[in-house]
């Protein structure tokens, strides 16, 4: 290979600055933008906010810098040993005579950036004690008023409503509508938690949304949301996504529910079970009292038969009579109550049956579907559309005429 004339001629020797300038020009023009994959080592997070580190592989290494303005946008904190892809340009720093990779974008390899941010925040908040069990507030056993922080149009609200209506409708639900994803969602959630605490007239809060991607659920992994949950005086049940989704909210909240429906199940007792419990209590009370009465009756009878001499027998007979009367009156009250409890349960069953769409259909209503979707408006059907009509006992296919 031909040697460069610059270096060959002794008489035209370059100054260090000159050669460095040439190198700088040459390198920076040659590598204005490169992607480099490697492992981070010698990581330093300078007090100025800039990140300094080395990228290396088995055979080589390159110095790298990420200026504060870029570093602040990172969702994860790089650390030694982490495999990354760095995007940037090669720059030469003449005072030291070295070159480095000026990084403007850094992506972890193998594990998602959001996942890393999640782990990082989780570690940080755990260390601060935000997940501590002894800070968790008890969930009231019989809440009268339940606050819900979620989207007004989301599936979560519908799910919670229908579970509450079925299990324990004797509660009041107070909705604080918020956006649950996208820019500003976290701030809205924080504000809603603060406002419902100022309003004060709820016993427990359900905070959540239906399932989605990690990005969709991200608001519930934001630090400000975690801190707002921690600061809430009213206990919070976190119900974000599906069973498998864990969010930072879940860890900070006083109780985690796997789904919004499950939160509703957890927050109220089942009415039918409570009625059953009341019924059992009544039987137990009656049983105990019966036992007491029969012991007494035996004692009175014993006295009546064993005392042959002149005892106030009339008094004893009176006692016996009183026991009998008492028993009759108690039995009467008892059967009234058992009847009432039984009726409540029947009413409940009828209500549940009324909710069953099949029974609505039996009354002469029908469901209309187009391509499987329920049609709820005449405007959704046009002439020539194929539709399916479902009756309680079967379906028919039809074509719209006009």
């Amino acid at each position, binding site marked *: 290979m031909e040697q460069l004339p610059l270096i060959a001629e002794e008489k035209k020797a370059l100054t260090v600055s000159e050669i460095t300038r040439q190198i700088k020009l040459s390198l920076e023009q040659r590598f204005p933008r490169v992607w480099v994959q490697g492992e981070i080592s010698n990581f330093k997070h300078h007090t100025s906010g800039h990140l300094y580190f080395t990228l290396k592989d088995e055979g080589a290494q390159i110095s790298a810098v990420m200026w504060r303005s870029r570093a602040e946008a990172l969702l994860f904190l790089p650390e030694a040993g982490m495999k990354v892809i760095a995007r940037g340009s090669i720059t030469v720093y003449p005072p030291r005579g070295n070159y480095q990779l000026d990084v403007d974008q850094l992506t972890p390899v193998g594990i998602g950036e959001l996942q890393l941010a999640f782990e990082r925040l989780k570690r940080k908040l755990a260390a601060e004690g935000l997940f501590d069990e002894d800070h968790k507030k008890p969930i009231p*056993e*019989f*809440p*009268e*008023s339940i*606050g819900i922080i979620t989207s*007004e149009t989301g599936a979560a609200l*519908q799910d919670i*409503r229908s579970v*509450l*209506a079925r299990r*324990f*409708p*004797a*509660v*009041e*639900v*107070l*909705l*604080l*509508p918020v956006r649950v994803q996208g820019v500003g969602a976290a701030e809205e959630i924080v504000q809603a938690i603060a*406002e*419902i605490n*100022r*309003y004060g*007239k709820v*016993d427990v809060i359900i905070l959540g949304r239906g399932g989605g991607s990690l990005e969709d659920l991200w608001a519930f992994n934001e630090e400000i949301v975690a801190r707002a949950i921690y600061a809430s005086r009213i206990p919070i049940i976190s119900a974000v996504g599906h069973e498998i989704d864990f969010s930072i909210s879940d860890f900070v909240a006083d109780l985690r529910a796997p789904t919004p429906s499950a939160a509703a199940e957890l927050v109220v007792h089942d*009415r039918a079970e*409570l*009625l059953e419990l*009341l019924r059992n*209590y*009544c039987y*137990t*009370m*009656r049983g*105990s*009292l019966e*036992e*007491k*009465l029969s012991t*007494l009756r035996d004692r009175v009878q014993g006295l009546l038969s064993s005392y042959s001499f002149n005892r106030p027998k009339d008094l004893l007979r009176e006692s016996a009579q009183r026991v009998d009367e*008492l028993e009759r009156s*108690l039995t009467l*009250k*008892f059967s009234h*109550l058992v009847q*009432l*409890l039984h009726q*409540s349960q029947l*009413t409940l069953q009828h*209500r549940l049956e009324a909710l069953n769409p099949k029974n609505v259909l039996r009354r002469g209503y029908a469901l209309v579907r187009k391509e499987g979707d329920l049609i709820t408006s005449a405007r959704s059907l046009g002439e020539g559309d194929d539709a399916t009509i479902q009756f309680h006992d079967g379906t028919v296919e039809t074509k719209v005429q006009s």
Partner: protein
Amino acid sequence: MSPGKSRKQSFEASLKRLEAIVESLEQGTVSLDEATELYEEGILLAKECAEKLKVAELKVKKLTKAMDGQFETEGLKEE
């Protein structure tokens, strides 16, 4: 305090009191007079609780804030 608050306390309190009554009756250490009184109270409480459970419709409201910062609630229709 909202009217709802007092209702809640009474449901929970009624049930707790009922539990206590059932327990003392089961232990059987009370006199007959006490037992009959407890029994009558218990039956009354059970009836009250059952009545409360009969509420048929879930009430859903939305919390909003008026211009002056005061809280307002508005009913939400069943979807």
